[in-house]
């Protein structure tokens, strides 16, 4: 579990290249550093629900990202706030 303020990195993983998938982690965030804002709850993993497979419960977070670093546009202080599941997040030391 990540507390609010925890520094994280989105896994730089591309399941799209390994076969049919349903993932809710947008391509532009893979490998990007972010900051956990809050825990939103825990939900059955949609990556499994999408294939009618048994789905483990996963924590879902609001994670903030520095927008200029993601899209090379916007001003310092602009942020993206994205909902991401815990298994897509790695701790940053």
């Amino acid at each position, binding site marked *: 579990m990540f507390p609010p303020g925890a520094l994280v990195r989105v896994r730089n993983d*591309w399941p*799209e*290249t390994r076969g*049919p998938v*349903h993932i809710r982690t*947008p*391509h*532009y965030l*893979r490998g990007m550093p972010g900051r956990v804002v809050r825990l939103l709850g825990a939900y059955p993993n*949609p990556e499994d*629900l*999408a*294939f*009618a497979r048994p789905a483990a419960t996963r924590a879902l977070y609001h994670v903030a990202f520095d927008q200029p670093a*993601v*899209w*090379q546009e916007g001003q310092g202080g602009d942020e993206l706030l994205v909902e991401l599941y815990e298994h897509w997040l790695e701790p940053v030391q």
Partner: protein
Amino acid sequence: MDKDVPRAPHDLGGVSKFLCEPVDVEPHALTDFDKEVDALRGILGVKQVMSVDELRRGIEAIPEAEYHRLSYYRRWIRSITDNLLVKGVITEAELRAALERV
């Protein structure tokens, strides 16, 4: 500058091609077709035949050119049809016969 990554066709956030197109934010009236598709998805969910997550996976599997050509609810009916065929709820013969009656 777009990253050269193996993104799926529906994963459009930040893709420059779409940043250059104005976003249509006007509300659209729903057609009878739209409402019927929405109701059908609702019933399939209540009856536990098909989840919203399965609907989304089916939409995301639509080939890119077709994905951009289809309206919102046409993507839904395409996904619902694919899901029901794969699950064996309907057969291709039944689908073809039903389409011929329309």
